[in-house]
């Protein structure tokens, strides 16, 4: 039951609500955010648009089967690497995620702001754990069952058979030299090896976005932990961390990344993520340290200390939420630069050779003088990078109290 005091709670606008309002006023950044969401949707739902497996298939024996669904997670013959599996997992779980999110939002409406925030936090944690556990389980198992070539059956026009395919009946590694059947359309043509360029670009979204998000999460986490420890405790801890930051700053980042890549026998995408993550942490660490130095002597922290709260609680629940603004800006720009670094690495030939990375597609177009392919791949990188940069600028301006409208 909503009383007047509840209403007062509802009308109180939190800091992040104000920031959100400011952000929405900047049209270009706001649309860049939607573009990013769109890119994520493309990455997650890529198999819906293109897959070599039919949604529904009735063979000559008359039994119905659903090869597309089982190919997403339960058959490594189609999607082999972790990036694809992760996005497929999100694809499978996305309806449940949506329903659960809507339910929680309805419930949170009638709650106090702080309770609602806690509920959202728990909800987020719950789903994170579920996804993580499922992903680890998937990576540990490796189910493989032989797949019939549905496409060829369908192309042969079996009378007794029935198949419902995705709009594009192509997997990104399929080399279809001269194979043209009903439903096989190469939207942007094929590359020299006979692979479909459009489908590879589509799945390349997965590579770029996962590199950007995971590498940045790694270094933001390291940066937050080290920066907050240094800023909060000061003294010797601070000196050690600052020295460490100084040392890492002395190495040109791209050289260092290339050096680490040089140590690897077979650079996989996971290693690229880890390496970028291990090298980029100095930026957020400096930001967080600065914010902590500013905030640790402010009254609310003194009050928290006087209440006898533990250091961990003060750091993570009282100071850190106030220090997150600059980190968020840094992270958004960081995703853009991580996408750029990954595509540069794959352009130079240091990327994961099994993945359809945009940089690789560009390099392939360059080596085969396929200008159309080059242009499209470069444009995809440009759009993604500028969307993140634009969103980052929007967040930065929205966080700046001097620029409030």
């Amino acid at each position, binding site marked *: 039951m909503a009383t007047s005091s509840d209403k007062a709670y509802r009308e109180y606008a939190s800091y992040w609500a104000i920031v959100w309002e400011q952000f929405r006023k900047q049209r270009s950044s706001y649309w860049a955010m939607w573009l990013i969401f769109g890119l994520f949707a493309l990455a997650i739902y890529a198999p819906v648009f293109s897959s070599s497996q039919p949604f529904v298939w009735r063979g000559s024996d008359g039994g119905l089967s659903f090869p597309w669904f089982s190919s997403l997670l339960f058959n490594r013959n189609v999607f082999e690497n972790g990036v694809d599996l992760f996005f497929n997992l999100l694809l499978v779980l996305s309806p449940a995620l949506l329903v659960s999110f809507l339910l929680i939002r309805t419930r949170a409406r009638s709650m106090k702001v702080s309770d609602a925030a806690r509920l959202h936090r728990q909800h987020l944690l719950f789903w994170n754990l579920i996804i993580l556990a499922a992903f680890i389980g998937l990576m540990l198992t490796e189910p493989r069952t032989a797949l019939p070539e549905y496409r060829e059956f369908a192309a042969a026009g079996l009378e007794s058979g029935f198949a419902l395919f995705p709009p594009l009946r192509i997997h990104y590694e399929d080399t279809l030299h001269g194979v043209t059947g009903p439903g096989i359309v190469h939207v942007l043509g094929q590359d020299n090896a006979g692979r479909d360029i459009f489908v590879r670009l589509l799945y390349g979204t997965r590579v770029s976005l996962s590199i950007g998000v995971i590498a940045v999460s790694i270094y933001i986490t390291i940066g937050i932990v080290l920066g907050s420890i240094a800023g909060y405790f000061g003294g010797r801890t601070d000196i050690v961390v600052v*020295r460490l930051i*100084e*040392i890492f*700053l*002395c*190495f*040109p980042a*791209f*050289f*260092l990344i*290339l*050096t680490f*890549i*040089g*140590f*690897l*026998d077979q650079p996989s995408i996971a290693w690229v993520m880890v390496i970028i993550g291990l090298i980029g942490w100095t930026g957020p660490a400096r930001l967080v340290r600065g914010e902590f130095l500013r905030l640790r002597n402010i009254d609310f922290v003194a009050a928290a200390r006087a209440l006898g709260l533990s250091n961990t609680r003060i750091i993570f629940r009282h100071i850190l939420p106030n220090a997150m603004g600059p980190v968020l800006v840094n992270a958004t720009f960081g995703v*853009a630069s991580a996408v*750029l670094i990954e*595509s*540069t690495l794959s*352009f*130079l030939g*240091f990327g994961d050779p099994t993945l359809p990375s945009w*940089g690789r597609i*560009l390099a392939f177009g*360059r080596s085969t*003088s396929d*200008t159309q392919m*080059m*242009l499209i791949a*470069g444009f995809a*990188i*440009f759009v993604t*990078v*500028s969307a993140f*940069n*634009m969103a980052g*600028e929007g967040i930065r301006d929205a966080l700046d109290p001097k620029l409030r409208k």
Partner: protein
Amino acid sequence: MTQYILKRLLLMVPTFLLITLLVFVMINLAPGTAGQAASASGSEQADQSAAAREGYRLFKEQYNLDLPIILNFRFLLDEDNVMRHLEVVARNLSGTIPGEREAFAVGRTAAGVVADIVNEPFHALARELADPDLDPDERAALQRRQQEVGFRTIDPRRPPRPAQGAIFDSEERLEDWGHAIVPELLAISRSYVWIYRDDVDSPWLDGVGILAETLGLDPSTRSGSVEWRGENWRVHTTLTDKVRFLAVQRLSVNARRRVLIRDGERGTEEQRAANRMIVSENNRISQWTWSLGDSPERQQEILAEWEGWWEEASIRYERTGLQTLGSVFLDTRFAAYWANLARLDFGTSIRYRRPVMQVIGEHWMYSVYLSVMSLLLAYFISVPIGILAAVKQNTFADRGVGIALFVLYSLPSFFVATLAQTYLTPASPLDADSFIGKVINFFAVFPVSGFNSVEAIEVTTWELLTNTLWHMVLPVICLTYMSLAVLSRYARTGLLDVIRSDYIRTARAKGLSEWVVIMKHAVRNGMIPILTLLGTTLPVLIGGSIVIEYIFVIEGMGSLMIGSIFFRDYNVIMGILLLSSILTLVGILLSDISYALVDPRISFD
């Protein structure tokens, strides 16, 4: 001010030490032995081809990879340590030697033969006991003695063949120990003598004689040997032969001396003379081996050669206590690394077979040309743009410039470079009939790649200069546009901060013209941040741009870095990394100092 600079300089020392330490850790953590892939052999073939093996050994020696990492305790190694590893390798030797084959041909195992030898006292007592007319007391005493002697069983199975990894590890270890085990190897190679029928005066004379009769063999065949060691019988079967063979072979490698002049160095006259002597000694030493199954006489000859060598060389292997202690700390990779760094010696490049500094020296000028041109261009363009955007803040011009710079900033440089190389060179694929094709093809006159295309030696400086500049147009543009966006932004915000300040209002109030207000009063202070940025570009100057140099095939530092990574040329990688980190340190210092020099408001006290 001087105090501040001194303080900063002193702070640089620990930072630099930590950086070098980090690089050292990185070299030694690098998975797989550095350069293994690139050194003529691969790790798989390393134990097959002798030449490849030797190349790999020299490589390790040159890069100090044969030394222990932090502490060197090799002076503690004794014969047993060496023996253990030699035996592991010997078990893997497939060649059978004649005696072995014969002994097994009669249907007895080597173990059985050895058991007979070892248990000969037991068997002798048993033969006595077999006499039916024996006195009971005597019989009891004999039985007691027989119990005391005991019957020893010898495992008839051959010892299992060691795993490939263990063999490789043992070989590697024996190789890495190098000079430290030369006396031990010499001792092993001469310590096991054959038991001949005439010169056997050991208690096993009878045993060996009986063995020979039973088998119908000449005991002088190399079917095995027996040696008394303290309280235990140590039985050497054919394995011993192989161990001795390996010991001599190892000796002929480990006793070689390090050459004084490395690849790509010249050295003085004296050094060269000494080097020649060492090389000739190494060559002689490498001949002194025998092959499995060579006659004992030949083996004795070679051992005699070694004895002769040892008389001269043993003085080199004698160490005082202090020297031993020193070697614990100084004869390590860690110490060698620092010693090399102190001489600015980053080792030798595997790819070029020359010192790293020399290789870097050949490449860095290209990067400097490129970077200096691009930097000058960037400053010349971005400062006016920044000023314009700041003066006309929030106008159409400001927004337009902002958007254009934003787009430039988000364009991947490898994409732009690839496009420029495709469309702005004579081989442009654009249709020459369309309007856009005509316009772009008009500019498609630039060379595709390279630093210059001057083939002839006799060109004038002017020709060389123009040719190089012509080649640099596209790379410099591609390198410039990205820093343009960053620099203009700095210039704009720097000027905006100043324009709002009071003294500018005062200048305007005095009635100065807008031009003078901006150019004379505002710009001088507003450009301080962008000026201090110059210091931090120092490493970029040398480091160059990896992508641009890769695409336009300019042999600068970026190309060197990429090539070294493909070749696993760790010394070059580490050299570049160390050099650029030093430059960054200096650059940060310079930019701080210049900040203080330009802006008197800043004090560091």
